[in-house]
């Protein structure tokens, strides 16, 4: 059960890293003519092995400029990644506490 929790958090962190690359491409190509900015929508998917992250690459259809969208989404993505990293750290701390108490 705990393995699944770790795996989910790690999948989320990996998805955030993929999204960072997509958003970096959006910012870098903001002045490239004909470039269609894209973003990764995080989502969940239930499979035989349990719940997993199912990232979807989509073109951005917002009214906001490509550069502004990339900047805002990058900030949002950083916060999500930090939250997931904090979650993983907390889970590791819990593991450590359990391991220490079990050893007594």
């Amino acid at each position, binding site marked *: 059960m705990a393995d699944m929790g770790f795996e989910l958090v790690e999948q989320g962190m990996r998805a955030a890293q993929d999204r960072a690359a997509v*958003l970096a491409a959006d910012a870098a190509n903001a002045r490239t003519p004909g470039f*269609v900015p894209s973003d990764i929508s995080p989502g969940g998917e239930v499979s035989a092995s349990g719940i997993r992250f199912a990232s979807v690459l989509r*073109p951005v259809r917002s009214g906001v400029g490509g550069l502004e969208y990339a900047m805002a989404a990058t900030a949002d993505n950083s916060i999500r990644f930090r939250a997931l990293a904090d979650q993983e750290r907390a889970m590791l701390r819990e593991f450590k506490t359990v391991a220490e108490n079990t050893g007594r």
Partner: protein
Amino acid sequence: MTASAFDIAAAGMSAHRAEMDVIAENLANANTERTDAAAPYREKTAVFESPDESPFAFALDAATDDLDVGIGDDGGPSPPAGPIFAGVAQSDASPQYRFDPSNPLAIAVGPRRGFVALPDVDPIAQMVDLVGAGRAYDADVAALQAAKQMDVEAVEVDRA
């Protein structure tokens, strides 16, 4: 293997710096009446291109907007990488003419006698482009810093 955020941001920074170099050249030569080609300076424009064409699935997704496409190294379409500075295009616009018969470069014969050919560079448009390129460069730096911060946090998880 998809390009990392570091590679993409670095490519964008490189491209936008090259663009700023071209704009600086235009501004520096806004009053250059004679070049090696015996003509006034012609405005230059930085040309960018995306390094890879959008894969078919992604292009289809862009067209239909309702098709879910997986991302990753397992056959799914990859996000585009950073721009490539493809080169410099030279303007083919006609030069501006100013009546200045005392100028040694003034046209000596013909209907434009006494006029001097001037570059077609619009300094205001160049300054606007410079601001845009600077903002794009800043965005690349922000993306690079965000990617770096994510890696630092990932390393800190390992230390926990």
